[in-house]
């Protein structure tokens, strides 16, 4: 039941988007943060074969079944997290980046991230003055169960709250900022450890950017309706 094949005709030069029928899983092994259970991962593989050519392209990614919710707690003003319906006590650490000369390697990421998991952390916060972390970073967070809070590239100091106050309207090119954001979201969005996108560090992005980010990142209406259906059920 975890295999589906679909015939498709694609016109010459066309760029299309295709959605598979949903694949059903009964009692899947769920992905849990460090300290709450196993980080069960499934390998999802997509291939496309073309008549008269054979296999034309393939793609694969480790995927974890989990549902992450978070909301601001009115009593404390803090953000509360739930994973698979269970509240999580967040033991988080700041993450700037692996190396100031960007000598980023799988080996280094594995060591750094396992180190944090061994210290009993269950979240890493990628600070807005650093980088959008790389797929290899997220891969090991998937494996070791570290939830990731990923900030976009806005900081209070450089974007309107520093001394001297500078760039109150953020970067010069907002379209470029949104293009980079959208491409980064596509690069990282399938990792089960990705728990939260955050506009910036100690600063809200300029209104147009903030509105666009919120709009791009809200749950697709299809899944919104699904979750409402679920509640109805």
């Amino acid at each position: 039941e975890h295999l589906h094949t679909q015939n498709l005709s694609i016109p010459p030069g066309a760029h299309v988007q295709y959605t598979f029928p949903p694949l059903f899983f009964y009692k899947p092994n769920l992905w849990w943060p460090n300290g709450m259970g196993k980080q069960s991962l499934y390998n999802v593989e997509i291939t496309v074969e073309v008549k008269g050519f054979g296999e034309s392209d393939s793609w694969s990614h480790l995927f974890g079944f989990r549902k992450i919710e978070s909301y601001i707690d009115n009593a404390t003003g803090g953000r509360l997290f739930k994973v698979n319906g269970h509240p999580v006590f967040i033991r988080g650490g700041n993450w700037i980046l692996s190396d100031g000369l960007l000598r980023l390697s799988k080996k280094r990421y594995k060591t750094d991230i396992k180190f944090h998991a061994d210290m009993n952390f269950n979240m890493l916060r990628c600070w807005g003055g650093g980088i959008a972390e790389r797929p290899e970073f997220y891969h090991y967070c998937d494996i070791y169960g570290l939830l990731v809070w990923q900030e976009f590239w806005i900081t209070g100091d450089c974007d309107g709250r520093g001394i001297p106050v500078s760039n109150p309207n953020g970067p010069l090119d907002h379209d470029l900022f949104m293009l980079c954001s959208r491409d980064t979201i596509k690069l990282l969005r399938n990792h089960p450890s990705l728990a939260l996108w955050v506009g910036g560090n100690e600063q809200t992005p300029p209104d147009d950017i903030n509105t666009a980010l919120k709009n791009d990142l809200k749950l697709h209406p299809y899944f919104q309706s699904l979750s409402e259906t679920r509640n109805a059920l």
Partner: protein
Amino acid sequence: MAVIGKTRLDSGWLAARSTEVNLTGVQLTTTHPPTGPSSPWMQAAVPGTVLGTLLKNNLVPDPFYGLENEAIIDIADSGREYYTFWFFTTFQCKLSGSEHVDLNFRAINYSAEVYLNGHKNVLPKGMFRRHSLDVTDILHPNGQNMLAVLVHPPDHPGKIPPEGGQGGDHEIGKDVAAQYVEGWDWMAPIRDRNTGIWDEVSLSVTGPVKISDPHLVSSFFDNYKRAYLHTTTELENRSAWVAECLLNIQVTTELEGRICLV
């Protein structure tokens, strides 16, 4: 016939400061390629930054030790061209009839010009964006290809005030780039502002149809007993005829212990 799939280009790169190379990108990738790590060319760390390459060749002290960072000239004092670098490599790739190949840069800081076998492409600004060039038609017929990339630093590298401070003079905030590079209360400024081909470079060979950016989403019911995997993908037919495709999705789980799936 090239093998379908991705090949990383992470070895055999050379680099040189742009002001020390009197050739154009067209000449570098046709008639006058560098022959090896002889001045002004040096072995390069790709993926990596300009400073990482200079350190690899012992041309700067290691900024992580003592006050050595003070001995490295800051881009504000040297000017952007001092950290504008050429990166050069060659690669073998020979396609059959209906194969296509993309040259992918997963991240470049901050903008670049790419020359492949004498053909120029511009990689627009932005530290956090992927670039993918369909180079099928500009591969060399003999399969031996020459690639040169001229990488430019961020537009606003800024200047570090004598008192330092968080984000220096904040000029870097005008660009879409990492801001820590002007220094923060916990670290010294990075002299080249992390200029370079800082993430993986790869070639991806496909047939006529290419898969892009699949999106995986799960939904749960009955207290997580019932789950669905929703998958959307982009597909591109780069041939001149209708492609009759068979699209497969398969989900397998890592197996417990020593159980093997036959």
